Each structure stands twice: as structure tokens, then as C-alpha cells.
């Protein structure tokens, strides 16, 4: 593909584009050149300006200066509508769907098939079904309300919306972040189909492997500036990471301080910290039993929709189980209150709806679960909180490092760091602190560098005796980070193994409709 | 009673004298009764008086229906009342014009309507109308204030006014009467701050008024109930250089006038006793009798009560009529 790129026409050219927010220059001279029919990847750390750039293209933000040429013409979309009319469709990083509208209505929102203002519902449903079919998801009913779909389903609908326009350029901002392995394959198939028809795709992801697989060329942003344009997607990782961060390190798991072997561990480390027995919730998961020992990292792998998030939330007491018990350190968990009191913490899956106070500053978000611990006689100790949050922000390479900034103004990946940081901070400052950490997709949207930092932090926690129960849709992450791996499918635990004794393919086989488990499940 | 702190039975009833032929029990009369929701002493007294008067007659059955918060609610309530076919309906409408259609409906259904206080524009909508004289009330207050000031020899007096709910037509009539009377003396109102017939709104309005008029000669407050708050505000502002006239004639106001220890020197009546009279006359209408002191065989069509001025001199006479 990259060979043909040389001869293809330029469809989009950005020169020296600048965009400033109050207090931040998000884009500080961006250059970008996209060719017809290519997959052009945007790389950059969290906060580098990728999402801002594509929002400028989509007419959401207006560039302060710089030049944009679209199909050879100067282009400054006044509104999203203008951009769409010009042939640029966008899949945004944050889901942009309306909960109380149906799948079809969301897909065609703003350009509904209609006659005299009356919606042509059958036509919309048919077209939606067709697009969903093309996307490999004929099972999603066009009439279903969005709020009844799981996160992955919503992502599909976002894609369907982008395809519902006859776009010449489709911009995808971290579309794979909420997708599981098989879904990503499917996504790539669609992208290839699109490019085969001459449609250009701008693709943003923090997963370098994906970029190598689907990308033709790469543009790297650093602090709002283009540091490398039009690189080949085969550029060595070290070089790409170097351009992104100014440093050079690899997507790697830090060496694990070997967890105590069961036999050699002292008594208190062998008795489980968390014991879950026969936990069930109708329609979500059934008969789950598991344990986590102090200092142990347990990873749960599974398909999107296999019930892992619900399991974690139930263990945390945020959902009431139909049957079964959760015992933490000898205390029965009956609700979130008791879970937190006894030292459990959870970084939930959906940061915006479940974790963040968007208008509050970073430090107050980080101390949301612990400000009472800092407080004296009910009076908050903002200075201590800020200091503690600052330390965590430094550890996680929050960008910008200003903990007084409203979370709303952070980039997606940095918001994720705040969510995870909340529970790391609790540990540092409370004598009792977090003893068991539940992490649901903790690295979603986090860049390569920060990811490594995060892994290191998780390891350090474990080394200090904190138990970690981790859910991730990235199988390598589960395998690389965890000591023990649990595989979940359709709400049941179907396999358990030490991380060293299982490989990626086996997990994927198990996770899919795989034949491997048939014997065990029975 | 204006305040529940008063004790004893304070309804204004007429227990017919022994020589009164009309007092003798006659044919049984069912009287439907509707007045707006009482959130105010005067209206409460209206309802109480009507009930008490009805209780005096062995041949009267009173069917009160509460009229809710606005004209629409009262219309709805009256529709159900008409459907029950009482012999006579006595009603104090939220607004005479807004309930005119309902009056017509009842009359068409053959039920004579006694309108209390708030006139229907169409004469076909009622059999009898008893009303207080709002314009006359303002006139009386203005007359009293004018005379007093003239007697004191005040040249161009500063006069304040605290009406009740300003959007009501009755308030406008009172104000008009007041202005007309003052004009005869060559005086006019310097500041006018409406309240809402409640004591706390009276306090707020009076406080604002006193602040706007650092010196004042006279004040008319339309309503003695809100007057509790007005007097409180005057006391809180430490003002006493003026005199005040009240309105309606509540017991507390009459007491204060008698004691003469506040700025309140007079009040002009607008007595809720009209409800008692309305029930008596409705009974006569139902029984087809006339008023025994009149030659006419039937009850007349309109009765307007005179607004009287209660001062220290005649207060004892009115003490019984205070509500």
C-alpha cells in the first residue's frame, strides 16, 4: 500500500496549524499530509494534541492560524455539518451518542432520511442494518436504544455513523481503545475495504502493533508540534517512541519482582486477601469463585461483554449479587461503603460517567476517595491533598502536571491517569490504605510511555502487599502484568492458569467460542 | 377572628329576634356555598360566618365546596356543585368576570345565585348581589386622612399607601376611591408599595415604603391582616411621626384603635359579615320570602354595604363586628 501512496493525490494538507485553549497551546504548528486511499496514523503521547487536531478538521474547533487545504482548496469548516458536507466524517474519542435514541437514529442523527420533516424510519433502519452488516455486526438491532448497548456496541454504532456519510476521509480517534482483539481485526478489515475504494483514513491509536499492521504512513505529534511527518509505518518502534517522547523506551513490561512462591511465602501472604464464593448476578455472570492473595496480581481476560466489568463492580459492592459472598480480609463486603472502608479500591471502566468530576480540579478528583482521610475533624486539608496528588501526577507523567486544572480540559489518556491515580494515592497516604485494587481497563487510551509507568506503579503496589485484580481486553497486558490469569466467557470463569504457563493464543482460543474449554466447562 | 389567639366564638351571626317572622323555621333549603381557598383572615371569616349563620337555621343545609386556588379551580368545583342541584348557590368568586359564565350556567339550570362581594358583569348571572363597597372604602380612608391632615394644617402632606395584591380589581377600586378622596383635598399619594394580604409581605412592603419616605404624614394600609406586619415594620423602623388608617376592620385593629397606643388611628370597614347576610337572604330566596322590613315580597337584587370608618370614638360600637 505504501508503494502506491507515492503516486496518489494529496487529499488533505495542513501547514503550521495552531490552536490555543485558555492557558494551553494544544496545537503549536502542526503539519500533516494525507493521501487518497491511505491509512495515515497519528501518533503522540497523551495530550500531544491529536484529538484537538482532528476536531479542527471536523469543524468542532477553529484553528487560530495556519493553513488547511482540502482537495486542493483552502478549507476552514465553520461547523461539524460543514465538515461532513465536505466529505470528512469523524469517529470521536469520547462516545458521542444519544442514549435515548435508537441505533438507527444515532447513526443518521443530523442527516436523517426524511420526507417533509417526517423521519423515514424503515429506510433508516434498512440502511443502518446494511451498514452494520458491512461492519460485521448484523446482530445489533437498528431499533435498540443506545443505552441498552454495551460499550463495544456503542463503538460500532459510532463507526456506523461515520460510514453513513459518503465521506472521502474518515478520521478515527482511538477506535480500538474499547474494542477487544477480535473486534480490532474486524475494524481493520473494514478500514481495508474503505481504502480500497480510495477513501482515506486518519487513524489514532496508542497501540504501535496496530499501527504497524494497518498503517501506511505515520505522523508524530509532540506537544502540539509535528516532530515527524509521513514516516513509513514500518519505522522501528524505538525511533517512533523517540519522536513521541524525546526519550527512547519500548512498549514493555518492567521486570516483575518475582511474587512469593506459595511454598516460601510467609503465612499471612498465603491466606487470601479476597475470597469470592459462588457469586452470581442474573444475566451477567454466574457462579464465580476466585481469590486474590496479598501482593498478587490476578488478571481476567475475556471478550467484551463477557461480564467482567459487572463482576468487578459486584465484588466492589456497587452491585448487589443475587447469590454468593465477597470476603475481604475476613470482612464481608455488603456495599461500596464497606468495601472502601476495608481497603478495596476500584478504577471503573467508563471514566467520564463513572469516575470523574469533570469540572473539578485534578487534585480533587484524585483525592475523591481519600479526602476524608486527609481531613482533620471534618475539615479538609487541601494543601496535603494537593501535594499528594502532585506526587501521583508526577509518577504517572500527567500532562500538564498542573493538578489545579479542571479534569475536563485534560486529554483522554490523562483523564484515565487521574482515575487510576485516585487509588494509588489512597495507598500512599492512608495508613490502612488500599489493600486490594480492582482495575477495569486501566490503560485504556494511555500512551506507551505512561503505560510503562503505570505498570511499574502496579508492580510496586504488589510488592508492598497490595492485591490487584485486573480486567483488560488486551491479552498481552493481562499476560505480561498478572501472576495468575483467569479467563471468562459468557459470564463464567472457564480457565485459570499461572501467567507463565499460558500463552496469548491459548487465551484467545479460550475466550472465543473456542473448543478447548468444552470439556472443562461441563 | 383575625388571629387564632382570640378565644371564644367570634363568628358574626344574626340570631333573629323573637318578633321576626322570617326567623321561624320554614321549608327546607339546601344552599351550595363556594368561596376561594382561605389563606387570609378575611376570606376565612367569610367561610366561618357563612357556616355559623347556616347553623342558626334548622331549615338550612349548607353544602360548602372549596374553590381551590384560582378561578379555573372554582369553575370546576361549581360544575360539580350545580350537578348536585341545590336550591340556592352562594358564591364568593375569585373574580366576578371570570366566573360570570358559571353564574349564568347555574341560573340557567334554575338555581338562583347569590353573588358575594365580586360582581358579575352580566345581570342575568345572579339573583342577588351583596357586596362591600371597595371604592367607598378607599373614599372613606381618603376622606378621614384628608380631614385629619387639614385639621392639623399640613400643607402638602406626604401620604403612603400599602394596598393588597395589586393585580386584583378590588385593589384597584380601593385605590381609585382613595385617590379621588385625596384629590378633593388637593393631596396625592407619595408612594405606594403593594403587599399580598399576608403579614410578612406587609412587613416587607412597609419597610420599603418607610425607607423611601424618610418623613411621612399619613398611611393607608388596605388590609388589617397584612397590617400586623405593617405595624411591626413601623415599630422596627422606630417611626411614629405619622398616623395610619387600616382596612377591613379586624378585631386586632379595632383593639389597637381603642387602646390608641400605635400609629393606627382608624380603620375603614369591609366586613365579612356580608357572608352571614348572604346566607340569611339565600334562605329567604329559597323559601320565596321577602325581607320583613321591606314592603317588597321578594329579596331585592342588589345590596351594597356601606364602608364605615372606625375610630377611637366609635370603636366600642364596632368591637363585636371585628373579625
Amino acid at each position: 500500500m505504501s508503494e502506491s501512496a507515492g503516486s496518489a493525490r494529496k487529499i488533505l494538507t495542513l501547514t503550521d496549524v495552531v490552536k490555543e485553549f485558555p492557558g494551553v497551546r494544544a496545537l503549536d504548528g502542526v503539519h500533516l499530509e494525507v493521501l487518497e486511499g491511505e491509512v495515515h496514523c497519528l501518533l503522540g503521547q497523551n495530550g500531544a494534541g491529536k484529538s484537538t487536531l482532528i476536531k479542527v478538521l471536523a469543524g468542532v474547533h477553529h484553528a487560530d492560524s495556519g493553513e488547511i487545504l482540502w482537495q486542493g482548496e483552502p478549507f476552514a469548516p465553520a461547523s461539524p455539518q460543514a465538515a461532513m458536507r465536505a466529505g470528512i466524517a469523524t469517529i470521536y474519542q469520547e462516545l458521542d451518542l444519544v442514549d435515548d435514541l435508537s441505533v438507527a437514529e444515532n447513526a443518521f442523527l443530523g442527516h436523517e432520511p426524511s420526507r417533509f420533516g417526517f423521519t423515514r424510519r424503515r429506510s433508516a433502519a434498512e440502511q443502518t442494518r446494511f451498514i452494520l452488516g458491512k461492519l460485521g455486526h448484523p446482530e445489533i438491532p437498528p431499533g435498540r436504544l443506545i443505552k441498552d448497548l454495551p460499550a463495544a456496541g456503542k463503538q460500532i454504532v459510532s463507526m456506523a455513523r461515520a460510514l453513513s456519510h459518503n465521506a472521502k476521509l474518515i478520521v478515527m480517534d482511538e477506535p480500538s481503545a474499547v474494542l477487544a482483539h477480535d473486534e480490532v481485526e474486524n475494524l481493520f478489515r473494514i478500514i481495508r475495504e474503505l481504502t480500497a475504494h480510495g477513501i482515506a483514513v486518519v487513524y489514532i491509536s496508542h497501540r504501535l502493533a496496530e499501527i504497524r499492521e494497518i498503517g501506511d504512513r505515520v505522523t508524530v505529534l509532540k506537544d502540539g508540534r509535528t516532530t515527524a511527518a509521513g514516516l513509513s509505518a514500518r519505522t522501528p518502534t524505538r525511533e517512533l517512541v523517540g519522536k513521541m517522547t524525546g526519550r527512547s523506551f519500548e512498549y514493555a513490561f518492567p521486570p516483575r519482582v518475582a511474587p512469593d512462591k506459595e511454598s516460601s511465602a510467609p503465612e499471612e501472604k498465603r491466606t487470601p486477601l479476597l475470597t469470592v464464593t459462588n457469586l452470581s448476578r442474573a444475566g451477567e455472570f454466574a457462579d464465580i469463585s476466585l481469590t486474590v492473595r496479598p501482593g498478587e496480581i490476578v488478571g481476567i481476560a475475556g471478550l467484551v461483554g463477557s461480564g467482567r466489568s459487572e463482576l468487578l463492580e459486584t465484588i466492589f459492592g456497587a452491585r448487589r449479587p443475587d447469590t454468593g459472598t465477597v470476603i475481604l480480609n475476613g470482612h464481608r463486603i455488603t456495599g461500596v461503603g464497606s468495601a472502601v472502608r476495608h481497603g478495596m479500591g476500584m478504577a471503573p471502566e467508563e471514566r467520564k460517567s463513572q469516575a470523574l468530576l469533570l469540572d473539578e480540579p485534578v487534585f480533587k478528583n484524585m483525592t475523591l476517595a481519600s479526602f476524608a482521610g486527609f481531613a482533620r475533624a471534618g475539615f479538609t486539608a487541601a494543601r496535603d491533598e494537593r501535594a499528594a496528588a502532585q506526587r501521583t501526577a508526577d509518577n504517572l507523567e500527567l500532562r500538564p502536571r498542573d493538578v489545579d486544572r479542571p479534569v475536563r480540559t485534560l486529554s483522554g489518556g490523562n483523564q484515565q491517569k487521574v482515575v487510576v491515580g485516585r487509588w494509588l494515592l489512597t495507598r500512599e497516604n492512608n495508613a490502612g490504605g488500599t489493600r486490594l485494587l480492582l482495575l477495569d481497563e486501566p490503560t485504556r487510551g494511555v500512551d506507551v510511555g505512561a503505560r510503562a509507568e503505570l505498570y511499574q506503579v502496579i508492580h510496586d503496589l504488589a510488592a508492598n502487599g497490595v492485591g490487584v485484580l485486573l480486567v483488560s481486553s488486551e491479552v498481552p497486558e493481562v499476560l505480561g502484568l498478572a501472576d495468575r490469569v483467569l479467563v471468562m466467557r459468557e459470564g463464567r470463569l472457564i480457565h485459570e492458569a499461572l501467567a507463565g504457563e499460558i500463552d496469548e493464543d491459548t487465551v484467545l482460543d479460550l475466550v472465543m467460542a473456542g473448543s478447548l474449554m468444552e470439556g472443562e466447562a461441563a | 377572628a383575625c388571629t387564632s389567639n382570640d378565644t371564644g366564638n367570634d363568628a358574626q351571626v344574626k340570631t333573629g329576634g323573637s318578633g321576626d317572622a322570617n326567623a321561624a323555621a320554614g321549608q327546607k333549603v339546601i344552599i351550595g356555598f363556594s368561596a376561594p381557598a382561605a389563606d387570609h383572615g378575611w376570606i376565612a371569616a367569610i367561610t366561618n360566618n357563612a357556616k355559623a349563620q347556616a347553623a342558626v337555621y334548622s331549615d338550612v343545609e349548607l353544602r360548602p365546596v372549596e374553590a381551590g386556588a384560582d378561578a379555573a379551580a372554582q369553575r370546576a368545583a361549581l360544575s360539580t356543585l350545580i350537578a348536585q342541584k341545590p336550591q340556592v348557590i352562594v358564591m364568593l368568586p375569585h373574580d366576578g368576570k371570570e366566573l360570570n359564565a358559571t353564574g349564568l350556567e347555574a341560573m340557567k339550570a334554575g338555581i338562583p345565585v347569590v353573588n358575594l362581594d365580586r360582581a358579575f358583569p352580566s345581570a342575568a348571572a345572579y339573583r342577588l348581589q351583596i357586596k362591600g363597597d371597595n371604592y367607598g372604602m378607599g373614599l372613606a380612608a381618603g376622606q378621614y386622612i384628608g380631614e385629619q391632615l387639614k385639621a392639623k394644617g399640613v400643607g402638602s402632606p406626604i401620604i403612603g399607601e400599602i394596598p393588597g395584591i395589586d393585580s386584583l380589581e378590588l385593589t384597584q377600586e380601593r385605590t381609585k376611591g382613595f385617590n379621588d378622596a385625596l384629590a378633593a383635598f388637593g393631596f396625592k399619594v407619595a408612594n405606594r408599595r403593594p403587599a399580598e394580604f399576608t403579614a410578612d409581605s406587609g412587613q416587607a412592603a412597609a419597610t420599603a415604603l418607610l425607607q423611601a419616605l424618610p418623613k411621612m404624614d399619613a398611611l393607608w394600609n388596605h388590609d388589617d391582616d397584612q397590617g400586623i406586619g405593617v405595624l411591626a415594620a413601623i415599630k422596627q423602623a422606630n417611626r411614629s411621626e405619622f398616623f395610619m388608617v387600616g382596612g377591613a376592620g379586624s378585631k386586632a385593629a379595632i383593639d389597637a384603635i381603642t387602646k390608641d397606643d400605635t400609629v393606627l388611628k382608624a380603620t375603614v370597614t369591609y366586613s365579612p359579615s356580608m357572608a352571614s347576610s348572604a346566607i340569611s337572604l339565600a334562605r329567604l330566596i329559597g323559601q320565596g320570602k321577602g325581607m320583613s322590613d321591606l314592603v317588597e315580597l321578594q329579596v331585592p337584587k342588589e345590596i351594597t354595604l356601606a364602608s364605615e370608618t372606625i375610630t377611637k370614638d366609635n370603636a366600642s360600637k364596632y368591637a363585636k363586628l371585628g373579625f
Partner: protein
Amino acid sequence: MIAETALPKAQKYDDNLLRNLGLVGVLVILVIIGIVTRPELYSDPAWVRNNVLIILQQASGIGVVTVGMTFVIIGGGIDLSVGAIIALAGVWATTLATQSYGAAGMIFTALVVGVAVGLVNGVLIAYGKLVPFIATLAMLVSARGLAAQISGKQTQVSANETINSIATTKLLGIPLLVWILALVVAAGWVLLNRTTFGRRTVAVGGNPEAARLAGINVKRHSLLLYVLSGLCCGIGAIMLTSQATSAQAAMANLYELDAIAAAIIGGTLLSGGRGTIIGALFGVLVFSTITNLFAINNLATEVQNMVKGGIIVAAVLLQQFRYRSLTNLLRRRNVSDKP
């Protein structure tokens, strides 16, 4: 493929339907209370028929206003000025000058005033970026003030027989006012559920950012919602004027609270993005039926009020109860479906 479990098969049950069923249940209970307390009235079929019509007729004005309000709330706003718009439109339509143009002139005036005030609301909110609560509260105060100014604080009698007869005319035995309500509700339902305008209203209220990204002109749309509400108020003004054969500055007092309450009881989210027209209608009917129940039982106002609060709470709790238990039922059935 999203795992099969990720798409629970048929979600046959529908929040809205259940809520509405709950409200129907509440209505039935209210009627039963009526029957039990006043059997002699309810034993007369003519009276019952008439009573139903009276309840509907009394609900008609506020019902029309509630339809507009429901749109505004679904679209993420609120309109505190509805009562004031009715007053202003009613007063303007009944000035002697307007009355001289006859019924058509009066109706035209009421509608134009309603739309114009709605337009001002809309401009202030959509383009002036005022919070809807404050903008429409300011409008409430101003419009009532203007109405008082125009009417000279007098009740203005309508001398127009055509207008006055709206309240007395019946078609096929059903009052014209009820027909108007039915028409407005039907139009509202179609507008909300079957047109791009309605679907965009849900989007604008549910997720304004998403709506903007989808290319919807959110500002213009918000503006139109207030205009729609103003239009409904204009219609309501005619209906109320005809019922009272008059208009005044204090008319339709606190309609805003009633309309909002009816919409919310009917399942509309105060924060926007969700709501139903039928539910709002049921909300209005519940209030109207409660009033009727009190009237036929001749409850004293204070008792009425104490009881009314309780009934409202009970009604909403009842709705929720039905909803939850039914959901559980369905969920349990789903579970047992599994092997």
C-alpha cells in the same frame, strides 16, 4: 462479534409503557376512591359520563401547555414563563382594540404574542447564553407586568361570542376544548416520535455535544423549542379566555409548576433527553382527577392540600414499584431461559 450475552435478546418491556401503565393504575385507583366515597353520584351513568368530560375539559388548557413544556424539557431546557405568556396573550387578545377585529383577530393575536414571547425566550437562551431558568423567570415577571400594564389591572371581559362559545361547543358529544387537547397531544406525539425535529429534540437535550458534532444546529433548535412552547401557550390562552369569557394579568397563575410537574410525573427527565407526550397527558389527567375527587367529596382546602401531596408521592412510588417488580419478573424469566 459482540458476545451474544452483550445483546440481551428482546427487551420487550419498555420504560415508558410501564410508566404510563403505572399512571393509568393511579387514575383507576383515584376513580375507585371516587366510586367508594360517592357511590350515589357514580351510580348515575349520565353523571359519570359528564364527569369524565369535565375532568378532560378542565385538563385541556394546562394539557396543551404541558405538551409544549414537555418538548422544552426533553430538549434540556425549562420554561417558567408559560403562565405569564398565557396571561399576556389572553390580555392582549381581549383588549377592546383587538376584540374589534373579531374572533379571528383575537386568536391571531394570542398566537402571535405566544410565539413572539417564545422567540424572545429562545433568543435569550440560545444566543444570549442565559440559563433557561433565569431567562424564563425574568420573562415570567416581565410578561405579567406587561399584561398588568395593558389591562390596567382589570379583568377584561370577552364580548366575542365566537370565542366564548369555544368553551361551550360540543362535537359528537365531546367538548371542543377536549378535541383541541386531543389534537395538540396527537400532533405533539407525531412531532416528537416521527419527525426529525422530535428526534433532534431528544438529541439536543440528551447530549448537546453529540448533537452538535452530528451537525445539528443546537442553538436554532433550542430557540424553536421555546417558540413551540410559546405557541402552545397562545393556544392555551384562547382556551382559558373562552372558558373564563375574560382574561386578566393574574390568569393561569403557577401553570408553570403544574405543567412541569405533569411532564415529570409522566416520565420526562428534568435534565432532558427523555420524555413522552402521552405520559405528560396522563400526568395532567392525574392532577385534574385529583381535583375532581376533592370537589365531589367536598374536602376543605387545607385537607385537600395535605392529601394532595400524599397522593402525588404515592402515585409516583406506585409507578416505580410496578416498574421494578415487573422488571424483576422479566429478568427472572430471562435467567430461567438459560440452561
